[in-house]
Structures are given as structure tokens and as C-alpha cells.
């Protein structure tokens, strides 16, 4: 997988993960271009399209578009599954996730994605083990966070 984007129906980027190093300017251009293409598509259309030399697989969940770019040889259906799995993970973690969860806890969303995919490849196909890893890392964070929180109040 080359990259994954989350954006809203209004064309606001909510999350981006690039698995190959890309210059900032190119990223912006690609994101803009891709959003235009995907947002222009009607709901009944299929989830795949060819764009530049990549295959784009996208799916809309409520007001959010999840959009992945994969290479020529990759399997579209499994990419769709990856998206779905990611959504399930977010859902489990946030408890019926909504766009706002991702906006306000965007770093958490990244952590989950990083536990699920790495370098564009699926890291773990089991939902349980991904969530367990996140929870434990969070726990670690909370324990260490405590003194700093106390400092604040």
C-alpha cells in the first residue's frame, strides 16, 4: 500500500499516512487531486478506480471517506477489507466511532493504524491483538502521564 487517506465529505483531510517517502508538495497535490476524483463519484459506483499508476480503493463510512492507494498487482478486495478492519478497530477503540473522535484524537487514530499496518503491509490480522497492543501502550502512557497531569491541576 502506498498511502491511506481519511477525508470528510467536505474535502477536509482527517488523516494521512504515507508508506513511501513523498515530498510535501507532491503529497498536497495528490491529496487534492484524489479528493476531487473520489468526492465526485456517486454512491452507487464501485469502490475502485485507476489513478495515475495506482489503484485507488475507497469506501465511505458516514461522512468519512477512507481511501487507499495500492499498486497494480495488489488485490482490491483485500484492500477494501483492510479499510473495513481499520474502521472496526476504530469503532472498538472509541466505541461507535464518529468523525469528531478522529478529529480530536487524531494521534490515537494514528497509533491504531500503526499497530494495524506497518510500511503498508498488514501487521496483524487479528483485531484482538491489535487492540491489546494499543491498550497496553495507552496504559503505559497513562501511568507516566499521571505526574504531569497532577502538575497541571
Amino acid at each position, binding site marked *: 500500500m502506498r498511502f491511506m487517506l481519511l477525508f470528510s465529505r467536505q474535502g477536509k483531510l482527517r488523516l*494521512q499516512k504515507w508508506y513511501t517517502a513523498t515530498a510535501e508538495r507532491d503529497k498536497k497535490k495528490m491529496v487534492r487531486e484524489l479528493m476531487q476524483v473520489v468526492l465526485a463519484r456517486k454512491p*452507487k459506483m*464501485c469502490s*475502485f478506480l485507476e489513478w495515475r499508476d495506482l489503484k485507488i480503493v475507497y469506501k465511505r463510512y458516514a461522512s468519512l471517506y477512507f481511501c487507499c492507494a495500492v499498486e497494480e*498487482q495488489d488485490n482490491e478486495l*483485500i484492500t477494501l477489507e483492510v479499510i473495513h478492519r481499520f474502521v472496526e478497530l476504530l469503532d472498538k477503540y472509541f466505541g461507535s466511532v464518529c468523525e469528531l473522535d478522529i*478529529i480530536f484524537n*487524531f494521534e490515537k487514530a494514528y497509533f491504531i493504524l500503526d499497530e494495524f499496518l506497518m510500511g503498508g503491509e498488514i*501487521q496483524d490480522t487479528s483485531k484482538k491483538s491489535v487492540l491489546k497492543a494499543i491498550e497496553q501502550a495507552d496504559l*503505559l502512557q497513562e501511568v507516566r502521564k499521571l505526574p504531569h497531569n497532577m502538575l497541571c491541576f
Partner: protein
Amino acid sequence: MALKIVKGSIDRMFDKNLQDLVRGIRNHKEDEAKYISTCIDEIKQELKQDNIAVKANAVCKLTYLQMLGYDVSWAAFNIVEVMSSSKFTYKRIGYLAASQCFHESTDVIMLTTNQIRKDLSSPNQYDTGVALTGLSCFVTPDLARDLANDIMTLMSHTKPYIRKKAVLIMYKVFLKYPESLRPAFPRLKEKLEDPDPGVQSAAVNVICELARRNPKNYLSLAPLFFKLMTSSTNNWVLIKIIKLFGALTPLEPRLCHSTSQMSFLFFLSPWLSPSSLSTSNSTSAMSLLYECVNTVILCVQKLRILIEDSDQNLKYLGLLAMSKILKTHPKSVQSHKDLILQCLDDKDESIRLRALDLLYGMVSKKNLMEIVKKLMLHVDKAEGTTYRDELLTKIIDICSQSNYQYITNFEWYISILVELTRLEGTRHGHLIASQMLDVAIRVKAIREFAVAQMATLLDNAHLLTGNTQRNGICEVLYAAAWICGEFSEHLENPMQTLEAMLRPKVATLPGHIQAVYVQNAAKLFATVLRSQEGNTDRTAAQETSQLMIDRLPLFVQSANLEVQERASCILQLVKYIQKLQQKDVEVAEEVNALFAGELNPVAPKAQKKVPVPEGLDLDAWINEPPSESESEDEKPRTMFTREETKHSRPRHTEVDEKELAKRREVRKQEQASNPFYIKSSPSSQKVYQEAPGVDHIPVVQIDLSVPLKVPGLPMSDQYVKLEEERRQKDRADKKKKEKKKRKEKGGRRGKRDSGPESEEDITPAHMVDIVTEEMPPTAICRSVSLVPPLNSPPCVPSTCQKSSKHKKKKQKKEKEEKDKKKKKKHHHHRHHSDGAGEESVQNGTVEEEEEPLPTISDAPTCSLASPPPFRQVCDIQGNLQDGSQVVVSLIFENKCDSFLKAMEFNVLDSLNSRLQRPDGAGPHDGLTVPFQLPPGVSNEARFVFTVKSIVMPQKLKGTLAFIVKNEDSSTHEKLDFKLHFTCTSYLITTPCYSDAFAKLLESGDLKASSVKLEGVVMPFPHLLARICFHHHFSVVERIDSCASMYSRSIQGHHVCLLVKTADQTVSIDAKCDEPSLLSNVLDEIKLTFSQC
């Protein structure tokens, strides 16, 4: 110090955290940029503090801003600071920021090496994990090299969490630092059998990706993977393994079986349980499914199920998979043409594009026209220019593939190209242009037709160039001008085309097109001169020169250098010619010599085919080589022994015989599949091998030895229809079909071969002849309509009473509408000067007898025509008062829902007949039809033609221009037609008494002629009625099976007939004072009866 910390923490209470920032941005929708710039200022302040918590918070906010598109590269060093925090909370944020913002050119990455190494060896697995995750995003070749060992160690970490990540990141490391692959591979292989499924799948992933790049090295792993494949129930892993096998199969055929088996499962499993891949437990069903899938054809049938599915995603994937199968098994896919054509109608553009891809591979000679017709319909409907352009390129791709292998009728192709020029705003004008040029140059037989088409295009150039700046379609004028110039000998009216090319409006075209215009105007000029100098009157030639001299200065002023240069050159030339002309010198030949000879395409490698003349050794030194002793020459050889064979000298001797033959073979194969390579005929190839000669430089020739000639704008649809009919005929002709089959089995054919092949396809040469001669695409004339009846019984019975006529026509109309094109029908028939009433009585009898429609020349027939939903009925009447006038009454009926207005009727005059125009009008001006047509309304208009000689039949080409006005738009349309003045149309039914008739015959002024009609089975009265109706005779006397008939021409020629019948044979003895008129009339009568 303590104070500082306290101060810092107090400040922090007022800091914004990420949530505040997000909220703030959402609350400042109007002045977001301004708000963010103040935030960035704050962040900069925060980053200056020593407190790592403050810094981490700032970095977290920066990461968010980075996503919104703000540049945060200035904070790279601060990110590294946060990464190196000992606390997981901050470290995590630091690595996240790094993974989002860093890339290979970020220079601070160098500073991170040690920090990452420290984190990798951290006792806390989450520290390690976060470092690995981060690294996977920003690993550089340097980092990969420095850290490869550390990561390799982690692959054997006790925690599967770390092992899994380490294995995955190794792939990135391999990519950046390939040397690491060899030492790491054994351990990677080990991980395939790791007890943890996560680690296992990670290893499969990595190896699969590696194998995709270089399958050979992974062949040894096949048994291991096979074991995994049969044991694993994780579909994610299975898919990867199948992909791996897919890459290995070409190297190891034995894998093929298992791969096909698995691929099918891979293919079906998501389909069987799309929602839960990982849990789908279809293992039990596998063996069963396996039974179903042994052949590709079965696979294709399964694909059909996918494509027929209502789920758009599956439909898309089915098409995609089918296009892959198409490459290897085109036959099996071709049978699903219907389905794929259906997909062209899909709402979803992605699906339509996939279907288009498939079409490319499934055309054959048989279905090309049909498919392209369908595509043309889509072109009309396509809403977006991108899709329309895609269609356009696909049409051209499909038609031109393998050297136009599938085109059986190039006229049809030219018509398609011409139709495509109607697309506005397409980017692919140059593509159409290059096709036109290619076909016109390479298919000699088509030139005449192409030239006629191109002349029409040039004439109507204004329609194409509405918006020159953005309109790529004007590129076709480039081709049109060149073709008309280069092949000007085929032009029917070169003068008109020359004028069209020198119109002032041409100056608005792009420079390179103008240049071609100017150059080809000169060629045309040469042609025109030649024809004009043939005449006794020299003034015409001088006028032409004057025209050039008048118009060329416009181009001399052009801003484009090329145009300017050519124009001034040619202007000077013409001025010189004019001088010579004034001295009465014949110049045409010399001017023509300027453009003599044909421009032929030569293959880029043609030079190689020219044999080296005997005695010429290209390798021999012309001069003594620069002093170089033998020993020196040998030195390098001994030093670099390996290179010896590559050394230039030995190569020449070695390579020769076998090697050359081999290379030639390879090259031939390459050429065979290269559509741009121009092949020589096989025979000439042989000749070349035996007796080489310069003559055998391959020069393209596609010879369609079919005389082709069609004026007017073509409608490709007609060709489709014709094609169908021709095939029906073919089917009857079994022998030929078999022959063809045998030929088709012959496999791939080169251009040369396809020439005769396509000829064979077109089979009956006369058929094509008719097609081209008589079937002008948009034309009216009766002869046009005859083409269909030739093969099928005439579908329009001869009818004359208006009402029934209409009914019948409607029937035919409906039939034609099945083709989804509304057609204009043109009705053409002769009338008595006394008026329609009398004639309908006359014909009434014919109608009762239910006779089929007679000849070309006379009866009302329908003709195919162009898209405008619009009908014309035409009568031609001779005018008794004036022996040189013919009145043509046209009934225009508007059959569409739009309002038709501003109709302009125009006919291209011939020497013999011309349209009478009002005084002051130019010879090419059209006549305005004095009415407008609301939907469904019909009206009649009359046009008077002056005819000099009536002894020969003739055809006049004409156009009807009109505006179609809809509620929201109005378009300018044009309809081409042909008026056919047969000789019988100059006859007027005139009653004659038998004694006057006898006197006439006795006078001896009349020349005799006779004709015999065989196999006429109709009763004698019918026969007579038929001659009366269609050829305007009246019966003078009838006795048993013998009758005398009489008619008179508008110029007073008497035509007398004696018709006798016996045993299905009708003999007609005729007398007339004008022998050629008589023979033409008799021919027309003969034709009438040959139709029934």
C-alpha cells in the same frame, strides 16, 4: 532553576493542548489562516522552553497542522528532541510526528540513528515497537545500513509483537539497503514457520513482495509455501501465497495446477463471504469448487457471474480479471461480448472504462463495425469530455490495431473518422488526423473516396473551427488539406477546394495547419492549371493564378515563420507563372513537375534491407588505419580475455550465417506484431533473398482493387447495414466461406496478406462498387435505396396514392429506426406535367395489382439518409412550356420534435444541368426554402432546373442546410443528397392516336433499337401498366399480347415502343429520333424489370 520549572508549569496551564487547537480552528472558520499563524507563533514559543511535556504538546499540535497542509519542517529538530524523551508518552508523539513529517531529504534524520538504536534495544517492547513503526515510514539508505543488524536481531525477539514488526520492517530495509537481504534471508525463512500467526503472516508478506520483484530466487521455497497454503485458514495469508505462486508459476510449470486451483479459491472466497474474509471457512467447499474449475473457459463463465452481479465492485473486478484472461485466451472471452457491451451502458465510469479495455481485444472482422457503431452511440451520449476522449481513442485503437487487420471496408473507417470530427472540444484531433493521413496514404484504393470526404471537410471548415484556441479538432484540417493537395487528381472540383483553402478565415487556424494549407494550395493550383490549360480558353487559368496572387498575401503576413516562408515562396512562383501565362506559354506541366512523384512512407529500418553492393566492404578501411602495430592490437585481448569475443572483428565473421538468420526471424516476428512497421509482400521478400535489389525496399501498399467513389458526407451506419447484407450473401456462398475460414486459420496476417483477405471479405466486387457508387451516405437518390433491395426483396411496394405511400414509408421507417438512427427518406418520382391527380389514378391500378417496386430510374423509393429526423419527398416534372426546364417538387416533412428553420437548399451544378437561382446570386449560392417546419408539419417547395441535353441520365449532388431548434439549444445540421435525373424523367406521358402513331413510324426519321426481357412472369396488362407508370408511356393500341406505346420528351423527341410477349420473354422494339436517349430509356426499362 526550580523557579524556572515552576514558572514553566504555571505557563503551561494556559497552553492550548491539541483539543483546544482543533476546537479553535473549528471556531475560526472565517479567518483560519490568521488563527493558525498565531497558533504557530505560540508553538514556537513553547518549543523554546525546556519542559519536554510542553515541547511534546507543541509537536503534537504541529503534527495536526502538518496534516492540514502547513509547513512544519522548521521544527524537525524539536521533533527529534521529543523522540529522544525517555517517557513513552512523549516518545510516541515524537515518533508519530517524525513518521508524518520526515522524508529522505530531512537532514536531521542523521541525528536519530543512535536514538533509534537505543530505543530498539529498550527493555520496554512498546518503546521498541514505536521506534520500528516510525522507522518504517522514514527509513533512509543510511539508516537501513546502520540499523540492519539491530533489526535482524529483533527478528528473534522473545515477544511476537516485536518479531512481527521487525520482520515487516525488514522489507523496507531490503529496499533501501539490498545488501542486507543475503544475511537476513535464512532468518526470514525461519519466520515462515513461526508459532505466532502474526509473525508468520508478516514473513509471508515480506517474501511475497520480494518474490514479486525477482521470483527466481524464491523457487526453492515453493514446497514450504505449499504446506502453508494447505494448512493455513487465514485468507489474508492465502491471498499472499497465491500471489507468490502466481509469480513463481512461469518458472515452474508444475506449480500451475495448484496455483490455478488456489487462484480460483482466492477469487471466489471473497465473493462467497465478502464481509468476513478471515473467518470464511470455506475449506470444506474447496475440493468441490476445485472440481468446477479446471479450464479457463469455466473460469470465464464464473467471471460472467461476477460481472452480472448487482454489486458494482464485483462487476468491476470481474471485468478486470476478464481483461487479464483476454490476453491469453481471447476466444473464451469473446463469447461474452454481449455482456461487455452491456457494461458500456453502466452508470459507473470505472466500469465503462474496464469494458472498453476489453473491447480492444475482442473485435474481429465480423463484429468490428457493430462494436464501433455502439461506441459511436456512446460518443454521442457521453457527458464528460474525458470519457468521450477515451472513447474516441479507443475507437481509433480498435480500428487501427495490427495494421487495420479487422477493417474490411476502409470507406466505412474514413466515414467514422469524419463523423468523429464532429466532436467538439476533444483533445484528440491530431489522432484523427494521423489516422486519416495513414489510411489515405497506405490504402490507395480509398484515396478517391478520402479526397472527396476531405474536400467536404475543408469546405465546411468553419464548422470545425468554431473555437480555434481550445478546439483540438481543427487538427483534422491539417490532414484534410494535405490529402486534398497530395491526391488532388482525385478531386472532383479542385477549384472549389482551392478556394476553400484560401479563405481568409484560414488565417485563424494554428500556424502549422496554415503552413500545410499554403503548401497544398500550391499543389492544387498545379492540378487546376493542368485541367484549365486543356481548354481552349486560357482566361480560366489566368484567373486561377490571379486568385492565388490575391489570396496569398494574407499568409505572407502571417506571424508564423513557416507559413510566411512558404507563402512568399509560392506567391513569387505564381507571379512568375502569371507572367508566362500572359505570354501564352503553357506552364501546367512544369508546375506539376514541382510536385511530381508520390510521397511514400518508408520503414525506419528499410535501409538495412538494401543489400550491400558486391565488392563494397564497409568494414574495410578507406585509408590506412592510423599506425597501430599488430602487437598493440593484440595486447588488450590478452589483458581482457573475456572481452575477446565481444571484440568487433571476430564478431563479423561469427555472427554471419546462423546468427543473422536467427536475428532476422526475431525481427520478423517483432515486425509482425508492430503495427507501425511496414511490411513488404511475402513474394518480394523471397525475391529479395534470391536476387537482392534496391527495388525491394518495403513500401506500403494496401491494394483494395475496388473502385471506390462516394461523394458527400458519409454515414458510417450505412456501411454497417451493407456489411450485414453482404454477410448474408456470403453465408449463401458456402465455398467462399470455407475458403475464408481456412484463411483465418492461417493465423496472424501481415498487412500485405490482409489486403487480399479484406478483398475477399468484401467479396462481390460489383457489390462494393454499388455501395460506393450508388450509396452516398446521406444521399437521397433512388439509386441509393436500391442497394438493399438488390439482396432482399424490395420492401416498399410500388404505391402511388399519397396516403398509402406514406403508410408504406412509415413501415420502412420503423424498420430503419430499429437501427436507432432516424433516417430521412427521400422520395423521388416522376410526374406527369398534368399534375399529380392524373398520375395517382394511373398508379392506382398499379397499386391494386400489388406489384413490387420497379426500377431505380423511376419509381418512388426510399433512401437512407442522415440523422436529422426529417423527410423529403421529391417529384421531378418536366416542363412542357420550356424544353429545357425540369421542376423538382420537394415535400419536406419534419419527423422530429424540434423546430426546423432556415433551410437552405443547394445543388452542385453540373455542366449540363443547373439549379435556377434568382438574379444576382452566385453559382454556388443556396436557395432559401421559404418556410419553417414546426414538428410534424410538412410543406412543399419547388425548384427549377435548367437542363441542356436530355439524352443522358445524370446525378446532381446537393445539400440541405437547416437549423434544428430545441428548447434550450439550436444546432446547425446538414443533409447531403443526390438528385437522380434519369432519362425517363424527361419523358412526358402524352396520349397519341393510332393513325398519328402509324404516320410517325412511316416517316422514316426514327432510329430503331430493341431489347429483350427474359423471365418476366407478370401478366401482360401489368407489364404495360408498369411501363406506363414508371416510364411515362401511354398505350396507343393493344392487341392480345402485343401493344404499341408512345411517349414524348420535354424537348419533343418521339419515343415509340412495340411490346410483345411470349413465354415469359418480352421483346421491345423501339424507335426514336434520338438514339442515345432511346438506348438510355431502354436500359432503364430493362432495369425496372430486372428488379422484380
